[in-house]
Protein backbone atom coordinates (compact mmCIF):
# COMPACT_ATOMS: atom_id res chain seq x y z
CA UNK A 1 0.00 0.00 0.00
CA UNK A 2 1.46 3.32 -1.10
CA UNK A 3 1.45 6.53 0.90
CA UNK A 4 -1.47 8.06 -1.06
CA UNK A 5 -3.69 5.07 -0.46
CA UNK A 6 -2.73 5.04 3.21
CA UNK A 7 -3.83 8.65 3.52
CA UNK A 8 -7.11 7.96 1.69
CA UNK A 9 -7.93 4.99 3.90
CA UNK A 10 -7.05 6.88 7.08
CA UNK A 11 -9.19 9.82 5.95
CA UNK A 12 -12.15 7.49 5.43
CA UNK A 13 -11.76 5.82 8.80
CA UNK A 14 -10.81 8.92 10.81
CA UNK A 15 -12.33 11.99 9.11
CA UNK A 16 -11.40 14.26 12.03
CA UNK A 17 -7.64 13.82 11.46
CA UNK A 18 -7.79 13.54 7.68
CA UNK A 19 -6.82 17.15 6.90
CA UNK A 20 -3.79 17.03 9.16
CA UNK A 21 -2.17 13.98 7.58
CA UNK A 22 1.10 14.86 5.88
CA UNK A 23 3.16 13.06 3.32
CA UNK A 24 6.38 15.09 2.84
CA UNK A 25 7.96 12.42 0.63
CA UNK A 26 6.63 9.44 -1.36
CA UNK A 27 7.31 6.84 1.35
CA UNK A 28 6.41 8.82 4.47
CA UNK A 29 3.08 9.59 6.16
CA UNK A 30 2.81 11.59 9.38
CA UNK A 31 -0.35 11.84 11.48
CA UNK A 32 -0.89 14.87 13.73
CA UNK A 33 -0.39 14.50 17.50
CA UNK A 34 -3.40 12.63 18.85
CA UNK A 35 -4.72 12.08 22.36
CA UNK A 36 -3.83 8.57 23.62
CA UNK A 37 -7.21 6.90 23.01
CA UNK A 38 -7.46 8.14 19.43
CA UNK A 39 -3.81 7.24 18.88
CA UNK A 40 -4.47 3.66 19.94
CA UNK A 41 -7.41 3.37 17.54
CA UNK A 42 -5.31 4.65 14.63
CA UNK A 43 -2.40 2.35 15.50
CA UNK A 44 -4.61 -0.74 15.71
CA UNK A 45 -6.33 0.25 12.44
CA UNK A 46 -2.93 0.64 10.74
CA UNK A 47 -1.85 -2.81 11.92
CA UNK A 48 -5.08 -4.70 11.28
CA UNK A 49 -6.60 -2.98 8.25
CA UNK A 50 -3.73 -1.28 6.46
CA UNK A 51 -1.18 -4.06 7.02
CA UNK A 52 1.51 -1.95 8.61
CA UNK A 53 2.96 -5.05 10.17
CA UNK A 54 6.47 -3.90 11.10
CA UNK A 55 7.19 -1.87 14.20
CA UNK A 56 10.28 0.24 13.54
CA UNK A 57 10.83 2.37 16.61
CA UNK A 58 9.56 5.24 18.73
CA UNK A 59 10.75 8.82 18.77
CA UNK A 60 10.11 10.67 22.01
CA UNK A 61 10.03 14.47 21.76
CA UNK A 62 9.70 17.28 24.23
CA UNK A 63 6.77 19.48 23.18
CA UNK A 64 7.04 22.18 25.86
CA UNK A 65 4.32 21.43 28.39
CA UNK A 66 3.69 18.08 26.75
CA UNK A 67 5.55 14.99 25.64
CA UNK A 68 5.16 13.61 22.13
CA UNK A 69 5.64 9.97 21.25
CA UNK A 70 5.91 9.12 17.56
CA UNK A 71 5.52 5.42 16.73
CA UNK A 72 7.04 4.50 13.39
CA UNK A 73 5.55 1.51 11.60
CA UNK A 74 6.19 0.20 8.13
CA UNK A 75 4.54 -1.98 5.47
CA UNK A 76 5.58 -4.27 2.62
CA UNK A 77 5.98 -1.34 0.22
CA UNK A 78 8.47 0.35 2.51
CA UNK A 79 6.12 3.19 3.50
CA UNK A 80 6.87 4.52 6.99
CA UNK A 81 3.76 5.67 8.86
CA UNK A 82 4.45 7.93 11.85
CA UNK A 83 1.56 7.76 14.30
CA UNK A 84 1.88 10.28 17.09
CA UNK A 85 0.39 10.80 20.51
CA UNK A 86 0.73 13.65 22.94
CA UNK A 87 0.36 13.71 26.72
CA UNK A 88 0.97 16.41 29.34
CA UNK A 89 4.27 16.25 31.22
CA UNK A 90 2.30 16.50 34.45
CA UNK A 91 0.51 13.23 33.66
CA UNK A 92 2.44 11.35 30.98
CA UNK A 93 0.25 8.28 31.14
CA UNK A 94 -0.02 6.05 28.05
CA UNK A 95 -0.82 2.43 27.30
CA UNK A 96 1.87 0.04 26.11
CA UNK A 97 1.61 -0.94 22.45
CA UNK A 98 4.14 -3.75 22.82
CA UNK A 99 1.31 -6.31 22.71
CA UNK A 100 0.44 -5.03 19.21
CA UNK A 101 4.03 -4.46 18.07
CA UNK A 102 6.44 -6.60 20.18
CA UNK A 103 9.34 -4.81 18.49
CA UNK A 104 8.36 -1.62 20.35
CA UNK A 105 9.05 -3.04 23.81
CA UNK A 106 12.60 -1.82 24.29
CA UNK A 107 11.77 1.57 22.80
CA UNK A 108 8.89 1.98 25.26
CA UNK A 109 11.23 1.16 28.14
CA UNK A 110 13.44 3.92 26.79
CA UNK A 111 10.52 6.38 26.96
CA UNK A 112 10.08 5.48 30.64
CA UNK A 113 13.72 6.11 31.52
CA UNK A 114 14.51 9.07 29.31
CA UNK A 115 11.20 10.96 29.16
CA UNK A 116 9.43 9.81 32.31
CA UNK A 117 6.47 8.23 30.49
CA UNK A 118 4.16 6.14 32.67
CA UNK A 119 3.30 3.17 30.52
CA UNK A 120 0.44 0.93 31.53
CA UNK A 121 0.77 -2.72 30.56
CA UNK A 122 4.54 -2.71 30.01
CA UNK A 123 5.74 -6.27 30.75
CA UNK A 124 8.08 -6.79 33.67
CA UNK A 125 11.76 -6.71 32.85
CA UNK A 126 14.96 -4.74 33.26
CA UNK A 127 14.80 -1.00 32.70
CA UNK A 128 16.58 0.47 29.71
CA UNK A 129 18.95 2.29 29.14
CA UNK A 130 19.83 4.23 32.31
CA UNK A 131 22.03 2.61 34.98
CA UNK A 132 20.76 1.11 38.24
CA UNK A 133 21.68 4.02 40.49
CA UNK A 134 20.08 6.72 38.33
CA UNK A 135 18.24 9.28 40.53
CA UNK A 136 14.47 8.91 40.57
CA UNK A 137 12.41 11.53 38.81
CA UNK A 138 15.25 12.66 36.54
CA UNK A 139 14.39 12.36 32.87
CA UNK A 140 17.39 13.44 30.80
CA UNK A 141 15.72 13.80 27.41
CA UNK A 142 13.30 16.45 28.65
CA UNK A 143 14.49 19.86 27.51
CA UNK A 144 14.56 21.35 31.01
CA UNK A 145 17.06 18.69 32.14
CA UNK A 146 20.51 20.17 31.79
CA UNK A 147 23.47 17.76 31.80
CA UNK A 148 25.76 20.37 33.35
CA UNK A 149 23.91 20.01 36.67
CA UNK A 150 24.40 16.26 36.76
CA UNK A 151 27.29 14.94 38.84
CA UNK A 152 28.57 11.75 37.23
CA UNK A 153 30.55 10.78 40.34
CA UNK A 154 27.72 10.97 42.85
CA UNK A 155 24.90 10.32 40.33
CA UNK A 156 22.97 13.31 41.61
CA UNK A 157 21.21 16.10 39.75
CA UNK A 158 21.71 19.42 41.46
CA UNK A 159 20.24 22.40 39.61
CA UNK A 160 20.67 25.86 41.14
CA UNK A 161 18.09 26.55 43.85
CA UNK A 162 16.57 29.61 42.22
CA UNK A 163 14.65 28.54 39.16
CA UNK A 164 14.90 32.09 37.77
CA UNK A 165 18.70 31.75 37.69
CA UNK A 166 18.36 28.60 35.69
CA UNK A 167 16.23 30.33 33.09
CA UNK A 168 18.58 33.33 32.99
CA UNK A 169 21.57 31.05 32.40
CA UNK A 170 19.77 29.30 29.57
CA UNK A 171 18.82 32.68 28.06
CA UNK A 172 22.44 33.86 28.24
CA UNK A 173 23.61 30.64 26.63
CA UNK A 174 21.16 31.16 23.79
CA UNK A 175 22.27 34.78 23.40
CA UNK A 176 25.92 33.73 23.19
CA UNK A 177 25.10 31.05 20.70
CA UNK A 178 23.06 33.43 18.55
CA UNK A 179 25.95 35.91 18.47
CA UNK A 180 28.40 33.16 17.59
CA UNK A 181 26.12 31.85 14.87
CA UNK A 182 25.79 35.31 13.33
CA UNK A 183 29.57 35.73 13.33
CA UNK A 184 30.07 32.38 11.66
CA UNK A 185 27.22 32.81 9.19
CA UNK A 186 29.56 33.57 6.30
CA UNK A 187 31.60 30.44 6.68
CA UNK A 188 30.34 27.16 5.34
CA UNK A 189 29.30 24.12 7.32
CA UNK A 190 30.16 21.91 4.37
CA UNK A 191 33.89 22.35 4.62
CA UNK A 192 34.75 20.04 1.72
CA UNK A 193 37.08 21.06 -1.04
CA UNK A 194 35.74 21.00 -4.57
CA UNK A 195 37.47 18.91 -7.10
Amino acid at each position, binding site marked *: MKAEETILRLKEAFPDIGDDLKSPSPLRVFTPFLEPKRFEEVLIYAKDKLDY*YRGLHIVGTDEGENLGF*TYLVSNADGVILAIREIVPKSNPHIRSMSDIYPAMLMHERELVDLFGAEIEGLPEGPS*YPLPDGWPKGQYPMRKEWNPKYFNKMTMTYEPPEEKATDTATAANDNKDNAAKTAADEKS*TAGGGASK
Partner: protein
Amino acid sequence: MSEGLTIPIGPQHPSLKEPVSFLITLDGEVVKKAVIELGYNHRGLEKACESRTYIQDLYIIERVCGICSHAHSYAYCRCVEELAGLQTPRRAEYIRGIVGELERLHSHLLWLGVAGHEIGFDTLFMYTWRDRERVLDLLAEIGGNRVNYGINTIGGVRRDLDENICQHILDVMDGLEEQIKYYAELANTEATLIARLAGIGILTRDDVIKYGAVGPVARAAGIMDDVRIVEPYGVFTEIKVNGVTDDHADVYGRTVVRIKEMLESIRLIRLMVKEMPDGPISVRAPRRIPTGEIIIRVEAPRGEDVHYLRSNGTDKPDRVRVRAPSEANWHGMKHMLEGFHFADVPIIIAAIDPCYSCTDRAIMLRSDKGDTVTDWESLRRTGIERYKKMGIDPSKIRMRTSGV
Protein backbone atom coordinates in the same frame (compact mmCIF):
# COMPACT_ATOMS: atom_id res chain seq x y z
CA MET B 1 16.07 -28.49 39.77
CA SER B 2 12.53 -27.97 38.65
CA GLU B 3 13.10 -24.22 38.49
CA GLY B 4 16.32 -24.71 36.54
CA LEU B 5 19.79 -23.29 37.05
CA THR B 6 20.26 -19.60 36.37
CA ILE B 7 23.65 -18.55 35.03
CA PRO B 8 24.58 -14.89 34.69
CA ILE B 9 26.66 -14.05 31.64
CA GLY B 10 28.10 -10.55 31.64
CA PRO B 11 28.08 -7.62 31.77
CA GLN B 12 31.80 -8.48 31.68
CA HIS B 13 32.49 -11.93 30.29
CA PRO B 14 35.24 -13.48 28.14
CA SER B 15 32.81 -14.58 25.44
CA LEU B 16 31.29 -11.10 25.13
CA LYS B 17 33.08 -8.43 23.17
CA GLU B 18 31.14 -5.58 24.72
CA PRO B 19 29.12 -5.20 27.93
CA VAL B 20 25.66 -6.77 28.10
CA SER B 21 24.02 -8.89 30.75
CA PHE B 22 22.27 -12.21 30.10
CA LEU B 23 20.52 -14.26 32.76
CA ILE B 24 20.21 -17.71 31.25
CA THR B 25 17.99 -20.24 33.00
CA LEU B 26 18.81 -23.81 32.03
CA ASP B 27 16.91 -27.05 32.05
CA GLY B 28 19.81 -29.46 31.78
CA GLU B 29 21.77 -28.16 28.81
CA VAL B 30 18.82 -26.43 27.19
CA VAL B 31 18.10 -22.72 27.58
CA LYS B 32 14.67 -22.41 29.16
CA LYS B 33 14.57 -18.69 29.68
CA ALA B 34 16.78 -15.75 28.78
CA VAL B 35 16.64 -12.25 30.26
CA ILE B 36 18.69 -9.63 28.45
CA GLU B 37 19.76 -6.39 30.05
CA LEU B 38 21.24 -3.67 27.89
CA GLY B 39 22.25 -0.08 28.40
CA TYR B 40 25.81 -0.39 29.67
CA ASN B 41 27.09 1.72 26.81
CA HIS B 42 24.51 4.48 27.08
CA ARG B 43 26.20 7.87 27.22
CA GLY B 44 23.50 10.27 26.19
CA LEU B 45 24.56 10.85 22.61
CA GLU B 46 21.17 12.13 21.47
CA LYS B 47 21.06 14.67 24.29
CA ALA B 48 24.60 15.76 23.42
CA CYS B 49 23.54 16.43 19.82
CA GLU B 50 20.85 18.88 20.93
CA SER B 51 23.37 21.32 22.38
CA ARG B 52 25.83 21.26 19.49
CA THR B 53 25.77 22.54 15.93
CA TYR B 54 24.89 20.35 12.97
CA ILE B 55 28.50 20.03 11.88
CA GLN B 56 29.69 19.17 15.41
CA ASP B 57 26.94 16.56 15.67
CA LEU B 58 28.24 14.89 12.54
CA TYR B 59 31.34 13.82 14.45
CA ILE B 60 29.31 12.60 17.43
CA ILE B 61 27.02 10.61 15.16
CA GLU B 62 29.98 9.07 13.36
CA ARG B 63 31.04 7.68 16.74
CA VAL B 64 27.76 5.90 17.44
CA CYS B 65 29.50 2.80 16.18
CA GLY B 66 33.11 2.03 15.33
CA ILE B 67 32.22 -0.50 12.65
CA CYS B 68 29.35 1.10 10.71
CA SER B 69 30.32 4.71 11.36
CA HIS B 70 29.87 5.64 7.70
CA ALA B 71 26.26 4.42 7.65
CA HIS B 72 25.36 6.59 10.63
CA SER B 73 27.08 9.72 9.38
CA TYR B 74 25.59 9.15 5.92
CA ALA B 75 22.06 8.87 7.31
CA TYR B 76 22.59 11.96 9.45
CA CYS B 77 23.99 13.97 6.52
CA ARG B 78 21.08 12.94 4.33
CA CYS B 79 18.66 14.13 7.02
CA VAL B 80 20.29 17.57 7.20
CA GLU B 81 20.74 17.84 3.42
CA GLU B 82 17.08 17.03 2.74
CA LEU B 83 15.88 19.53 5.33
CA ALA B 84 18.19 22.20 3.91
CA GLY B 85 17.14 21.35 0.34
CA LEU B 86 20.70 20.56 -0.77
CA GLN B 87 21.44 18.58 -3.90
CA THR B 88 24.68 16.68 -3.33
CA PRO B 89 26.97 16.22 -6.36
CA ARG B 90 26.80 12.83 -8.12
CA ARG B 91 30.50 12.21 -7.59
CA ALA B 92 30.02 12.64 -3.82
CA GLU B 93 27.24 10.03 -3.87
CA TYR B 94 29.49 7.59 -5.72
CA ILE B 95 32.27 8.11 -3.17
CA ARG B 96 29.78 7.62 -0.36
CA GLY B 97 28.62 4.44 -2.07
CA ILE B 98 32.16 3.07 -2.45
CA VAL B 99 33.06 3.79 1.18
CA GLY B 100 29.72 2.31 2.30
CA GLU B 101 30.38 -0.96 0.47
CA LEU B 102 33.98 -1.11 1.73
CA GLU B 103 32.52 -0.70 5.20
CA ARG B 104 30.11 -3.58 4.56
CA LEU B 105 33.04 -5.72 3.44
CA HIS B 106 35.11 -5.05 6.53
CA SER B 107 32.10 -5.46 8.83
CA HIS B 108 31.10 -8.82 7.32
CA LEU B 109 34.70 -10.05 7.34
CA LEU B 110 34.94 -9.06 10.98
CA TRP B 111 31.71 -10.92 11.70
CA LEU B 112 32.87 -14.04 9.89
CA GLY B 113 36.02 -14.03 11.99
CA VAL B 114 34.10 -13.57 15.23
CA ALA B 115 31.71 -16.36 14.24
CA GLY B 116 34.66 -18.65 13.51
CA HIS B 117 36.20 -17.77 16.87
CA GLU B 118 32.94 -18.43 18.77
CA ILE B 119 32.70 -21.95 17.35
CA GLY B 120 36.38 -22.69 17.96
CA PHE B 121 37.37 -22.34 14.30
CA ASP B 122 40.18 -19.87 14.89
CA THR B 123 41.85 -20.49 11.54
CA LEU B 124 38.85 -18.89 9.86
CA PHE B 125 39.09 -16.02 12.33
CA MET B 126 42.73 -15.39 11.41
CA TYR B 127 42.14 -15.70 7.67
CA THR B 128 39.19 -13.28 7.60
CA TRP B 129 40.80 -10.73 9.86
CA ARG B 130 43.91 -10.78 7.68
CA ASP B 131 41.68 -10.02 4.69
CA ARG B 132 39.81 -7.36 6.64
CA GLU B 133 43.10 -5.54 7.20
CA ARG B 134 43.37 -5.04 3.46
CA VAL B 135 39.99 -3.31 3.44
CA LEU B 136 40.89 -1.24 6.50
CA ASP B 137 44.12 -0.17 4.77
CA LEU B 138 42.04 1.00 1.83
CA LEU B 139 39.71 2.93 4.12
CA ALA B 140 42.72 4.50 5.84
CA GLU B 141 44.07 5.50 2.44
CA ILE B 142 40.74 7.09 1.51
CA GLY B 143 39.80 8.78 4.78
CA GLY B 144 43.00 8.81 6.81
CA ASN B 145 41.69 6.44 9.46
CA ARG B 146 40.94 2.73 9.81
CA VAL B 147 37.58 3.39 11.45
CA ASN B 148 35.62 6.65 11.73
CA TYR B 149 36.96 7.70 8.34
CA GLY B 150 35.24 11.09 8.44
CA ILE B 151 34.46 10.95 4.74
CA ASN B 152 30.98 12.47 4.99
CA THR B 153 30.18 16.09 5.50
CA ILE B 154 26.94 18.00 5.18
CA GLY B 155 26.63 18.64 1.45
CA GLY B 156 28.92 15.91 0.15
CA VAL B 157 32.21 14.26 1.06
CA ARG B 158 35.46 15.61 2.44
CA ARG B 159 37.96 13.72 0.32
CA ASP B 160 38.15 12.87 -3.34
CA LEU B 161 39.35 9.62 -4.84
CA ASP B 162 42.19 9.98 -7.32
CA GLU B 163 43.15 7.48 -10.03
CA ASN B 164 45.82 5.80 -7.89
CA ILE B 165 43.38 5.07 -5.07
CA CYS B 166 40.78 3.84 -7.55
CA GLN B 167 43.31 1.45 -9.08
CA HIS B 168 44.38 0.28 -5.63
CA ILE B 169 40.73 -0.38 -4.71
CA LEU B 170 40.30 -2.50 -7.85
CA ASP B 171 43.52 -4.45 -7.14
CA VAL B 172 42.45 -5.22 -3.57
CA MET B 173 39.00 -6.30 -4.80
CA ASP B 174 40.60 -8.87 -7.12
CA GLY B 175 42.47 -10.53 -4.26
CA LEU B 176 39.54 -10.25 -1.89
CA GLU B 177 37.10 -11.80 -4.33
CA GLU B 178 39.26 -14.89 -4.58
CA GLN B 179 39.39 -15.23 -0.80
CA ILE B 180 35.66 -14.67 -0.29
CA LYS B 181 34.85 -17.26 -2.95
CA TYR B 182 36.97 -19.63 -0.92
CA TYR B 183 34.92 -18.81 2.21
CA ALA B 184 31.74 -19.39 0.22
CA GLU B 185 33.02 -22.81 -0.80
CA LEU B 186 33.97 -23.46 2.81
CA ALA B 187 30.45 -22.61 3.97
CA ASN B 188 29.03 -25.01 1.38
CA THR B 189 31.34 -27.94 1.98
CA GLU B 190 32.97 -27.82 5.42
CA ALA B 191 30.98 -30.36 7.43
CA THR B 192 32.07 -29.11 10.87
CA LEU B 193 31.11 -25.53 10.08
CA ILE B 194 27.70 -26.55 8.75
CA ALA B 195 27.03 -28.91 11.67
CA ARG B 196 27.91 -26.20 14.15
CA LEU B 197 25.84 -23.42 12.55
CA ALA B 198 22.85 -25.12 10.96
CA GLY B 199 19.62 -25.44 12.90
CA ILE B 200 20.51 -23.12 15.78
CA GLY B 201 19.25 -19.66 16.69
CA ILE B 202 16.26 -20.06 14.41
CA LEU B 203 14.14 -16.97 13.77
CA THR B 204 11.46 -17.82 11.24
CA ARG B 205 9.92 -15.45 8.75
CA ASP B 206 6.90 -14.86 11.00
CA ASP B 207 9.11 -14.22 14.00
CA VAL B 208 11.27 -11.79 12.02
CA ILE B 209 8.12 -9.80 11.25
CA LYS B 210 6.85 -10.07 14.82
CA TYR B 211 10.09 -8.96 16.46
CA GLY B 212 11.08 -6.47 13.77
CA ALA B 213 14.48 -8.02 12.98
CA VAL B 214 16.46 -6.41 10.16
CA GLY B 215 19.47 -6.92 7.92
CA PRO B 216 21.07 -10.34 7.39
CA VAL B 217 18.87 -11.81 10.19
CA ALA B 218 15.73 -10.93 8.22
CA ARG B 219 17.22 -11.80 4.84
CA ALA B 220 18.31 -15.21 6.12
CA ALA B 221 14.60 -15.86 6.75
CA GLY B 222 13.69 -14.91 3.19
CA ILE B 223 12.61 -11.32 3.79
CA MET B 224 14.17 -8.84 1.42
CA ASP B 225 14.42 -5.70 3.54
CA ASP B 226 17.58 -4.22 2.01
CA VAL B 227 17.00 -0.46 2.03
CA ARG B 228 19.20 -0.09 -1.05
CA ILE B 229 16.47 -2.03 -2.88
CA VAL B 230 13.29 -1.10 -0.95
CA GLU B 231 14.00 2.62 -0.96
CA PRO B 232 17.04 3.30 -3.17
CA TYR B 233 19.07 6.36 -2.18
CA GLY B 234 22.16 8.14 -3.44
CA VAL B 235 24.17 6.08 -5.88
CA PHE B 236 21.76 3.14 -5.61
CA THR B 237 19.16 5.06 -7.59
CA GLU B 238 21.55 4.60 -10.56
CA ILE B 239 23.27 1.32 -9.73
CA LYS B 240 20.97 -1.58 -8.94
CA VAL B 241 21.75 -3.94 -6.10
CA ASN B 242 21.13 -7.67 -6.45
CA GLY B 243 19.53 -8.58 -3.15
CA VAL B 244 20.63 -11.67 -1.26
CA THR B 245 18.21 -13.85 0.68
CA ASP B 246 18.26 -17.34 2.10
CA ASP B 247 15.66 -19.66 3.56
CA HIS B 248 17.56 -21.41 6.37
CA ALA B 249 16.43 -18.82 8.96
CA ASP B 250 19.24 -19.94 11.28
CA VAL B 251 22.84 -18.98 12.04
CA TYR B 252 24.02 -20.86 8.95
CA GLY B 253 21.62 -18.84 6.78
CA ARG B 254 22.98 -15.60 8.24
CA THR B 255 26.50 -16.75 7.40
CA VAL B 256 25.57 -17.56 3.80
CA VAL B 257 23.79 -14.21 3.37
CA ARG B 258 26.79 -12.27 4.64
CA ILE B 259 29.26 -14.13 2.42
CA LYS B 260 27.09 -13.58 -0.67
CA GLU B 261 26.62 -9.92 0.25
CA MET B 262 30.38 -9.49 0.30
CA LEU B 263 30.61 -10.77 -3.28
CA GLU B 264 27.81 -8.37 -4.26
CA SER B 265 29.63 -5.50 -2.54
CA ILE B 266 32.75 -6.25 -4.59
CA ARG B 267 30.67 -6.15 -7.78
CA LEU B 268 29.13 -2.83 -6.73
CA ILE B 269 32.50 -1.29 -5.81
CA ARG B 270 33.97 -2.23 -9.19
CA LEU B 271 30.96 -0.77 -10.96
CA MET B 272 30.97 2.43 -8.92
CA VAL B 273 34.69 2.99 -9.48
CA LYS B 274 34.18 2.48 -13.22
CA GLU B 275 31.09 4.68 -13.53
CA MET B 276 32.11 7.45 -11.12
CA PRO B 277 31.46 10.80 -12.83
CA ASP B 278 33.77 13.81 -12.67
CA GLY B 279 32.74 16.95 -10.88
CA PRO B 280 32.66 18.62 -7.49
CA ILE B 281 32.47 16.53 -4.33
CA SER B 282 30.51 18.87 -2.07
CA VAL B 283 28.19 21.84 -2.03
CA ARG B 284 28.08 24.64 0.50
CA ALA B 285 25.73 24.02 3.37
CA PRO B 286 24.02 26.67 5.49
CA ARG B 287 24.69 26.74 9.22
CA ARG B 288 21.03 27.21 10.06
CA ILE B 289 18.66 24.54 8.90
CA PRO B 290 15.01 25.42 8.15
CA THR B 291 12.34 24.06 10.48
CA GLY B 292 11.19 20.58 9.60
CA GLU B 293 11.40 16.93 10.46
CA ILE B 294 12.57 13.94 8.50
CA ILE B 295 13.01 10.19 8.70
CA ILE B 296 15.89 8.73 6.67
CA ARG B 297 17.06 5.17 6.41
CA VAL B 298 20.30 3.74 5.14
CA GLU B 299 21.41 0.12 4.75
CA ALA B 300 24.21 -0.33 7.28
CA PRO B 301 26.20 -3.61 7.26
CA ARG B 302 24.00 -4.92 10.09
CA GLY B 303 20.74 -3.81 8.51
CA GLU B 304 18.40 -0.88 8.33
CA ASP B 305 19.66 2.23 10.11
CA VAL B 306 16.85 4.73 10.76
CA HIS B 307 17.53 8.35 11.68
CA TYR B 308 14.95 10.90 12.74
CA LEU B 309 15.88 14.56 12.81
CA ARG B 310 13.81 17.59 13.77
CA SER B 311 15.16 21.07 13.13
CA ASN B 312 13.93 24.34 14.59
CA GLY B 313 15.46 26.95 12.29
CA THR B 314 18.62 27.39 14.36
CA ASP B 315 22.11 25.94 13.91
CA LYS B 316 21.36 23.14 16.37
CA PRO B 317 18.92 20.27 15.94
CA ASP B 318 15.86 20.04 18.16
CA ARG B 319 15.87 16.25 18.27
CA VAL B 320 18.09 13.55 16.84
CA ARG B 321 16.99 9.94 17.16
CA VAL B 322 19.12 7.06 15.94
CA ARG B 323 17.62 3.59 15.57
CA ALA B 324 20.63 1.42 14.79
CA PRO B 325 20.08 -2.04 13.27
CA SER B 326 21.34 -3.88 16.36
CA GLU B 327 18.64 -2.15 18.38
CA ALA B 328 16.01 -3.77 16.18
CA ASN B 329 17.62 -7.21 16.31
CA TRP B 330 17.66 -7.49 20.10
CA HIS B 331 13.91 -8.07 20.36
CA GLY B 332 14.18 -11.46 18.69
CA MET B 333 17.27 -12.53 20.66
CA LYS B 334 15.35 -14.01 23.61
CA HIS B 335 13.34 -16.07 21.15
CA MET B 336 16.50 -17.17 19.30
CA LEU B 337 18.16 -18.41 22.50
CA GLU B 338 15.30 -20.25 24.15
CA GLY B 339 15.13 -23.94 23.34
CA PHE B 340 18.74 -24.24 22.17
CA HIS B 341 21.81 -25.60 23.93
CA PHE B 342 23.80 -23.49 26.34
CA ALA B 343 26.97 -24.18 24.34
CA ASP B 344 25.35 -22.46 21.34
CA VAL B 345 24.58 -19.25 23.24
CA PRO B 346 27.78 -17.38 22.21
CA ILE B 347 27.38 -18.07 18.49
CA ILE B 348 23.63 -17.32 18.54
CA ILE B 349 24.36 -13.98 20.17
CA ALA B 350 27.18 -13.31 17.72
CA ALA B 351 24.98 -14.25 14.75
CA ILE B 352 23.01 -11.00 14.84
CA ASP B 353 26.40 -9.26 14.73
CA PRO B 354 25.39 -7.31 17.81
CA CYS B 355 26.78 -3.86 18.33
CA TYR B 356 26.11 -2.69 21.86
CA SER B 357 27.42 0.77 21.21
CA CYS B 358 24.99 1.11 18.31
CA THR B 359 22.15 -0.15 20.45
CA ASP B 360 22.87 2.20 23.30
CA ARG B 361 24.18 4.99 21.07
CA ALA B 362 27.36 5.51 23.02
CA ILE B 363 30.41 7.65 22.98
CA MET B 364 33.27 6.77 25.27
CA LEU B 365 33.86 9.27 28.05
CA ARG B 366 36.44 9.35 30.79
CA SER B 367 35.84 10.93 34.16
CA ASP B 368 36.53 14.66 34.30
CA LYS B 369 39.49 14.26 36.63
CA GLY B 370 40.93 11.37 34.70
CA ASP B 371 40.91 9.19 37.80
CA THR B 372 39.07 5.96 38.53
CA VAL B 373 35.44 6.36 39.49
CA THR B 374 35.40 3.61 42.07
CA ASP B 375 37.83 1.26 43.77
CA TRP B 376 37.89 -2.50 43.31
CA GLU B 377 36.30 -3.40 46.64
CA SER B 378 33.31 -1.08 46.26
CA LEU B 379 32.88 -2.24 42.67
CA ARG B 380 32.78 -5.85 43.87
CA ARG B 381 30.35 -4.95 46.67
CA THR B 382 28.03 -3.19 44.21
CA GLY B 383 28.15 -6.22 41.91
CA ILE B 384 27.31 -8.64 44.72
CA GLU B 385 24.37 -6.52 45.90
CA ARG B 386 23.09 -6.23 42.37
CA TYR B 387 23.12 -9.99 41.78
CA LYS B 388 21.56 -10.64 45.22
CA LYS B 389 18.58 -8.58 44.09
CA MET B 390 18.26 -10.98 41.17
CA GLY B 391 18.27 -13.94 43.52
CA ILE B 392 21.90 -14.96 42.94
CA ASP B 393 24.44 -14.78 45.77
CA PRO B 394 28.02 -14.64 44.50
CA SER B 395 29.43 -13.40 47.86
CA LYS B 396 30.63 -16.90 48.76
CA ILE B 397 33.07 -16.87 45.89
CA ARG B 398 36.60 -16.59 47.29
CA MET B 399 38.55 -13.70 45.85
CA ARG B 400 42.30 -13.47 45.62
CA THR B 401 43.00 -9.94 46.85
CA SER B 402 46.66 -9.62 45.92
CA GLY B 403 49.37 -11.28 43.89
CA VAL B 404 47.67 -12.54 40.75
